[in-house]
C-alpha cells in the first residue's frame, strides 16, 4: 500500500477549556500563509465540558484525509501530560512529542475512582524511538501575563520544529487571537519559542 508522501501530521491534545481548538486554528492559519494545503478535524460538543479534546492538523502539497492515519502523527502536542499518554499510540516511529508539564486531574480521580498517572512524562520519555520536549507552559504563561496563554506557549515551542517563517506565525496570531488578548499571546508565543530549539522528527 502506497503512503501519501510529504504530509506533516500534527495531533494537538488536551483538556476541554485549554485552548486546543484555538491553537489548532493558529497553526492552520500559519500553514496556509506558508502556502500549504491544510486540513483540520476535531469534534465539538461533549468534549468541551472538561473532557479529553483532540484536533488533527495536516499540511503539505495536497491533503486528502482530514484525519491522521493511526500511527502516522509526526508531532504530538499535548497541553496536559496525562493526555500525552492517552494519545501516545498515535505517534509515528521517530516522531516528536511536545508536552506541557501540567497536571489536570480528571474529576473521577478526586473521588478515588481512577488514579492519575503521576509518572506520565517518565513513561513518555522511556522509549528511544522518539524525541520528547517537555515545557513548563504554566510558568511561561504566567510570566507572559496570563495563565490562559499556556496553549500559545506550547505552540511557540512547536513553532521551532515547523517550516513556517516568523512572519507567518505573527500574522496567524494576529488574525486568530482576540485584539485585547493579542499582546499577551505574542509574549507567550515568544516565551515558548525561546524554549524550543529546532527539533525535527527522526524520519518522516
Amino acid at each position: 500500500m502506497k503512503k501519501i508522501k510529504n504530509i506533516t501530521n500534527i495531533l494537538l491534545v488536551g483538556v476541554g477549556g485549554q485552548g486546543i481548538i484555538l491553537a489548532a486554528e493558529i497553526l492552520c492559519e500559519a500553514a496556509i500563509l506558508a502556502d500549504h494545503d491544510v486540513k483540520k478535524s476535531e469534534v465539538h460538543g461533549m468534549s468541551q465540558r472538561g473532557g479529553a479534546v483532540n484536533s488533527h492538523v495536516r499540511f503539505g502539497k495536497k491533503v486528502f484525509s482530514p484525519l491522521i492515519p493511526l500511527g502516522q502523527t509526526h508531532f504530538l502536542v499535548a497541553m496536559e501530560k496525562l493526555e500525552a499518554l492517552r494519545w501516545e499510540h498515535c505517534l509515528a516511529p521517530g516522531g516528536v512529542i511536545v508536552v506541557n508539564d501540567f497536571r489536570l486531574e480528571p474529576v473521577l480521580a478526586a473521588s478515588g475512582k481512577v488514579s492519575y498517572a503521576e509518572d506520565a512524562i517518565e513513561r513518555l520519555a522511556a522509549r528511544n524511538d522518539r524525541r520528547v520536549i517537555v515545557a513548563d507552559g504554566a510558568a511561561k504563561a504566567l510570566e507572559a501575563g496570563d495563565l490562559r496563554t499556556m496553549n500559545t506557549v506550547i505552540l511557540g515551542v512547536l513553532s521551532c520544529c515547523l517550516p513556517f517563517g516568523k512572519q507567518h506565525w505573527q500574522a496567524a496570531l494576529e488574525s486568530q487571537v482576540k485584539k485585547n488578548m493579542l499582546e499577551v499571546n505574542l509574549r507567550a508565543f515568544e516565551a515558548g519559542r525561546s524554549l524550543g530549539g529546532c527539533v525535527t522528527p527522526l524520519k518522516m
Partner: protein
Amino acid sequence: MSGNEAVAAGAWEAGVRCASGYPGTPSTEILETLAGYPEVRCEWAPNEKVALEVAAGASLAGIRTLVTMKHVGLNVAADPLMTLAYTGVRGGLVVVTADDPSMHSSQNEQDNRNYARFAKLPLIEPADSSEVREFLKEAYNLSQRFELPVLFRMTTRLCHSKSVTAVGSRIDVPPSGYEKDFVRNVMVPANARVMRVKLEEKLAELSREVESIKLNRIEKRGTIGIITAGNVYNYVLEVLPEASILKLGLSWPLPRKTIAEFAASVDNCYVIEELDPFLETEIRAMGVNLSQTPNPPQRIGELSPEAVSALFDKSSSGHSYPDERGEAVEIAPRPPVLCPGCAYRGVFMALKKMKLTVTGDIGCYTLGALEPLASMDTCLCMGASIGMAYGLERALAENDKTRVVAVIGDSTFLHSGIAPLINIVYNGGHTVTIILDNSTTAMTGHNEHPGSGRTLQGDPAPAVNYQALARALGVRFVATVDPYDVDLFRKTVKRALKYEGPAVIVARRPCVLLPFVRGVKKPKVHLDLEKCTGCGACFRIGCPAIGQDEQTGKCRINPGYCTGCGLCTTTCPCEALEL
C-alpha cells in the same frame, strides 16, 4: 473554512433568503454562521418539524430556503418531509441532515441516507468544504428545477473539518409570489394520489439525468474500482491512491447505468461506505457484480484511513478505532463533566440524596447520569423524560417504593416537552416535572430559544413563561426554585411528590458560562485545611474545581476553576468549606 461554515457560505451564494433549524451537534454552526449575513432571515425554531414547515411555507412564495438539523432531528421533521415530497416545492428547499457516525455527541448513529429512499427524495453527499459550497448551489438548482426538496447529508467529520475553500458572490433569487394550487398543495387523498404519481415521474426524469450529472464523477486509475461517497472518498484516496473511483456526489437516485459500466470496466469493484450498506444493497440488487473485501465491512462507527486500509489487509484482525489505544495501558478516563458552578449540580445533589428515580432528557444535564453524581436513570430522545416518567409511574405496583421525577432542560421542554405534559394532566397523572431553566440552549454552545428572550439574529423576543404555560395546561402545583439553594429545592421536590396532582418545578438559574453571569465576580470558596479531614464528601459532587491533594489526601480548591457557587459547602460535614 469548516464544512458547516461552507454550508452557510454556499446557501448565501445560492440566494437563500430564509433559513430555519434547531441546534444540534454537529449542525449548530451552520445557522450561527448564516445569521451573520444580513440578506438571510435566519431563525431557530422550537423544533425541527416546525423549522421544515416554516421553510415549506416560505418556499410557497418562491424563495430559496435552508433547513438544518442533526440526524435525529430529521425523525422529528419526518412527518412534513414525507408529504412535502408529494407537494414538492416552488422555491428551492434544501434540508441539511448532519449525521453523527460514532455518536460523538448523540444518542444513536442512524444513517439518514435511508430517508432519501424512504421519502423518495434526491440525496447529495459532499466530501469536503469546497464540495459542500459547490454542491449546495447545485442542490438548489436541482430542487428548483425538479420542484423537490433535496436532502444534503453532512457528517460530524465533514461539519467539523476545515479545508481551504474559495468564496464566491451571491445570486439574487427574488420571491416569485404565491399562487393558489389546490391539487398540488392540499394533500387530501384525492390530490395526494395525483401528486404521488407526479413524484414518481419526477424521480424517473431525475434518474435519467443523474447518469450525466457532474456531481457524480469517475476517476480512472488502476484496475481496482471503488464506489464511494461523502467524506469516505478522502480516506480512499489516502489509502488506495491507485484505485479507480466512482465518486457519487448525488447518491440517490443512483446512476444505474454509470455504476454498471464502471463495475464492468475494472477487475474488482468494491463499495466503501460509512454505516449502513445503503449503496451496496442497492447496487447488488441491480445485479452488479461486486467483490468482497478480504475483511468484512465495518458497519458500526465512523470510518478512518486505517479502517479503510484494514478492509484490504488480510493480516489485520479487524477494525481499528482511532480513539482506542492498541495496547492495554490504564489511563484514567476523562469524560465530560458538568462545569464548575453549574446549577444542575445542585439539582442532581438533591435528587441523589432523595434516592429518586429520574427520567432524563437531552442536554448538558444528561451528564448528571455519569459518576459521581449518577442520578439520572434514562435518556432516550428529545422530550422523552416527561412521557416516560408518567408511563413508569402508572405501571408501578401500588406498594412499590420507587418515586419518579422527570428532568428536562428549558430548550428541550419547548422542543417537545409540552405535549407529554398535557398528556399527564389529561390522563389524570401525578407526575413531577422539573424544568431546568438556564436561559439558553447550553449544550450546543449557547443558542437562543423561545424562552431566552432573544432571537438567533439578536433581536429581543418575548420569553415563554413556563409557570403560566404549565398553569394554562391545568397544572396546579407550580413552583420556581434556585437550585443553588439545595435544601429549599429538595423540600420543594418533596412537597411536589406529596401533592395529589401533576406538578411542575422550574429550577431557574442562568448558565454559569453566559457572558452576563461570567462578568460578575464572586468570592471563591475558602478552604480551612485545619478543619478538612479528607473525608471525600466534596469529591462526590463531581466539581472540576475540587481535587485531592496528592500528599495529604485533603481537599484542594483550584481557584482558576472555582466560581464561588458554594454547592460544595453544603456537603462538607467538617465545615472546612465556606463562602
